[in-house]
């Protein structure tokens, strides 16, 4: 171990982290949402918070097939930042508080620089960005549960999923200590999913097991035609679920509610 510390290695390898989410496996249990909130130090919602002012960096939507009962089926769709390769939020931010990290492919939000204009929220078609409408407050004693690897955000700034950057940094340090250039880690949502429906991988690595999943015919992405190049992939063997990918192919389906 001591020798490892002396031989810390800096890697120049470029990663492009992405995810594959199996919608047929997702049961809508919401464990990913809870794990995400705990990992990222989200403060308990004040009494005034509504569904539309809460912060859910990971959010599972329940979508129903536009078919009459009893044939109607239900799918659960976990949505978070799509970590676009051409992120519309990055282009619009007036003070470079959003940055696509070329080393990881992760779209970072620098909350210390954000002044809360919310232009990025308007620009994001996936509604993956959240504003801190209230001061974050933890009841006495609850601060003991805070994750020391993630800085809590202040009121008046925008935040989003950053693929558990705290965990990424730990993995990076670990790899450096071990002299490896292979940084692998599990975000909190993937770790918590009991159905193992969420998988992360390096899209730049042709040997990564995620490549097999991406190559499958049941894999699709949301709103590809908008040209933002998302790095989140979804899978389903059901045609009606795959048709959710684009708005004009979804037969006007808007039959959703939060899981």
């Amino acid at each position, binding site marked *: 171990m001591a020798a490892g510390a002396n031989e810390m290695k800096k890697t120049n390898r470029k990663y492009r982290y992405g995810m594959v989410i199996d919608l047929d496996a997702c049961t809508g249990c919401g464990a990913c949402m809870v794990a995400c909130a705990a990992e990222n130090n989200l403060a308990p919602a004040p009494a005034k918070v509504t569904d539309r002012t809460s912060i859910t960096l990971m959010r599972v939507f329940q979508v129903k097939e536009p078919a009459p009962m009893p044939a109607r089926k239900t799918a659960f769709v976990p949505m978070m930042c799509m970590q676009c390769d051409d992120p519309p939020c990055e282009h619009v931010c007036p003070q470079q508080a959003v940055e696509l990290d070329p080393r990881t492919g992760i779209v970072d939000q620098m909350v210390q620089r954000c002044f809360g204009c919310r232009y990025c929220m308007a620009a994001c078609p996936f509604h993956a960005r959240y504003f801190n*409408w209230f001061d974050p407050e933890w009841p006495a004693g609850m601060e003991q549960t805070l994750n020391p690897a993630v800085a809590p955000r202040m009121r008046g700034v925008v935040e989003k999923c950053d693929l558990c950057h705290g965990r990424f940094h730990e993995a990076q340090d670990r790899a450096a200590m071990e002299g490896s250039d292979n940084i692998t880690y599990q975000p909190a949502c993937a770790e918590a999913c009991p159905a193992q429906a969420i998988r992360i991988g390096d899209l730049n690595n042709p040997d990564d097991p995620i490549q097999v999943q991406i190559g499958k015919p049941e894999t699709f992405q949301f709103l590809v035609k908008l040209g933002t190049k998302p790095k989140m992939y979804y899978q389903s063997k059901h045609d009606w679920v795959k048709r*959710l990918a684009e708005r004009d192919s979804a037969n006007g389906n808007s039959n959703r509610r939060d899981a």
Partner: protein
Amino acid sequence: MAASAIKPPLTAEIAASERQWIARGLERCSPLAFAGWMAPWLILLGVGIYATYLCLRYGLGATNLDNRFGFGLWIFLDLAVIALGAGAFFSGFLLYILKWKEIKAVISSAVVLGFLCYSGAMAILAIDVGQPLRSWFTFWHPNVHSMLTEVTFCITCYLIVLTIEYLPILLKNRRIKQVPSFLVFEWELHKLIPVMAGIGCLLSFFHQGSLGGLFGVMRGRPFAFREGFAIWPTTFFLFVLSAAAVGPSFIILTTKLVEKITSKRLVKEQVYQTLAKTTGVLLTAYIALKSVDTLIWLNSTSFNAGFAPWEYYEWKPFGGWILFAEIVVFGMVPALMLLSKRIRTRRGVIVLGALLACTGVVLNRFVMTIQTLALPTLSFDEFMTYMPNWVEFAVFGMVIAYAVIVYSLSYRYLNLFPQEKELSAGNVEVNDVPVR
């Protein structure tokens, strides 16, 4: 007893002393009547200051804004007042660059209005952002690819230009100009004004355009997204043109309103005719280009993004009527009314045409801001509506009150309308102004 009998009453004393601040030859109401006019606006200002305190102390959770409607009433009205305030730059352009001398009759008023619109919009923006103290970061870490960076830079610079343009008007006050150094300063400043008008035009062109670009570049919102020329989406040019078109109309409306309130004639009819005709020409060009742009968007841009355009208008209350209203009722109709000399010279047509034109552009800003955010993007997304709460209305009311108070003070103590003295003498025919 004898001494107090010859002493004038206190109100008369105040009136006499206050009279010395009002330009010679101008009739103004009594200080008491003026105080009565100002009182409700001051109350509105007070309520708005309290609402501002709530936002700054407790955060924007005090408003009805939410994660879907990050932009709401404030951004919509900011865009609207900035478009209406374009009269300042455009009348400056007409007077100092194109040398339309008759615009001089309204230029001071236009500058004050522009200053109020822009400073009011900046004040609202300072409350609207989550961390106002970090606003300077935009200057320190500017993202040159962001339309909002361009807007921030240009609006800040233009507000400085408007302040410099406002100063000579202020320094011409009857009492202030008695200080020799102020008079000299005013004289020197005045020489700068044509240069300032030129700079103002350039800045306005870019920020009015970039305000349109804000929405046009949003690829993730196909309702707003437009293709364009080089880095500028078509909304860039449409916003510039529409702002230039309604700027003169807003000057007409405000001047007519002041005339109505004060029961005075302030500007000769020929000036109104020129302003109305200017709106008519520019509005015609705007509506023609907007129609072409809308057709391209409906038939190509939207489909390419994976969105069937008719679906945008299936969500009530934003049906197809809103597009019809924007282009026909508040576009083609006022353009025709103000373009045709035969129609616009009829009684009341200028005011109606100007009102329709201004409403059309305000509606356009509403559509770009609110309808854009209300429409769903993901296939399982919901259409959402939003209603501002009292805090948002009160903050906007505060800015309106601020504008009315400053404009009222400016009208009372500064000579905003150079033709007022002549017209109030009552010996001028309607059309006897020297035509350009």
